[in-house]
């Protein structure tokens, strides 16, 4: 039993009735930042050397640019993102009444495009969508994550947790097997993190570009040789929601840098 599991078990016994066995207690939750080497941390820390900031700058441009047949820019409704978007990404995925389910920040941007700008949706992982979501999420940097608190999303958080606990793929492994039970250990040379999604969209050195949490989840699924869920699928949204609720209290870091 790892020390973390011992702590988890103790905390479960003492105070936290909502915590399921094997889950990481709030005070033991750690951002992926704490698992990185000094060079990668330095790259994230300095905005003038963080390559994710290139996308944030692009997003800032797009925010003020008219798009679609309604000839409206994001800023025409939302004003200065520094005020209007502060803390927003820390609450996502969030419940949308019209569609009756939680939507990711990427989906919210595309819903805004469809409903208010009369614009075509931006493709998943396209530069413009990543830039806009990075710009919006950047306004929440330092804000504590609260996603999943809304009672309307509870059943979706539960669905996400079930998916996190479910073994999949030819290697028959669940997310929890690595990210709850074996973080701080090494898979080949690389440290296993807790899988806390604090900095998305983030700049991954492996990708050499910015990418979404959905892209990361899909590559984890490929890693266990499972058929990845489609971008925007209810399963990926539920997993994203569960992961964000699991990271409750951790500070947003967008745009984070990870190996």
């Amino acid at each position, binding site marked *: 039993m790892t020390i973390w599991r011992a702590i988890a078990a103790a905390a479960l016994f003492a105070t936290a009735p909502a915590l399921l066995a094997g889950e990481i207690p709030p005070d033991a939750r750690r951002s992926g930042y704490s698992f990185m080497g000094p060079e990668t941390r330095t790259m994230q820390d300095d905005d003038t050397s963080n390559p994710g900031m290139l996308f944030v700058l692009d997003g800032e441009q797009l925010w003020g640019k008219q798009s679609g047949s309604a000839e409206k820019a994001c800023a025409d409704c939302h004003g200065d993102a520094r005020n209007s978007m502060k803390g927003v990404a820390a609450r996502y995925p969030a419940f949308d009444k019209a569609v009756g*389910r939680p939507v990711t920040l990427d989906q919210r941007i595309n819903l805004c495009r*469809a409903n208010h700008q009369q614009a075509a949706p931006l493709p998943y992982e396209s530069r413009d969508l990543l830039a806009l979501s990075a710009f919006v999420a950047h306004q929440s940097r330092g804000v504590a994550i609260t996603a999943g608190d809304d009672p309307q999303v509870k059943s979706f958080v539960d669905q996400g947790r079930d998916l996190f606990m479910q073994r999949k793929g030819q290697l028959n492994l669940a997310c929890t097997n690595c990210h709850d039970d074996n973080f701080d250990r090494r898979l080949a040379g690389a440290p296993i993190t807790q899988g806390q999604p604090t900095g998305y969209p983030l700049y991954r050195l492996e990708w050499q570009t910015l990418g979404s949490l959905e892209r990361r989840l899909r590559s984890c699924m*490929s890693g266990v040789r499972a058929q990845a869920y489609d971008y925007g699928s209810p399963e990926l949204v539920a997993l994203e929601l569960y992961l964000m609720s699991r990271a409750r209290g951790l500070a947003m870091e967008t745009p984070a840098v990870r*190996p």
Partner: protein
Amino acid sequence: MPTTRRQFLNLAGGVTVVGAIPIVTLRPLRATPAMLNTAVRNVVGEAQIRTGKVKLDIPPLVENGNTVPMTVTVASPMTADDHVKSIHVFNEKNPQPNIGNFYLNPASGRAQISTRIRLADTQKVIAIARLSDDTFWQVAADVVVTLAACTEEMN
């Protein structure tokens, strides 16, 4: 115009950019010691290369070879009479041995440059400085590159 559930489902099945272009890195192709030697001689000519004066800051073990931070510093007063004219960085095992050439002058004030490089594998990196008296000085560093345990190339 509110979004209906059907429209939303269409959104959910939206187009993606990344999945369309799976890239496979070609591993077997790599520079040979002869290629490295040729690349160095293209810069240095027949001149002797001495060891010293040059410092190469590069992590000995990197988390991902796609983006490796690197700083080269040369001990030089950077005066009109005694300065660094250029810094040349090479690698041993990438498909091509050159990394970059950086041209300085007395107005630089300090003989130091930083950039981020790609290293296809665990290998040696070499930095060579050309001083204003046309002498060449070098330093080499070994870098161990960690390979990602999971990649997107499998499925």
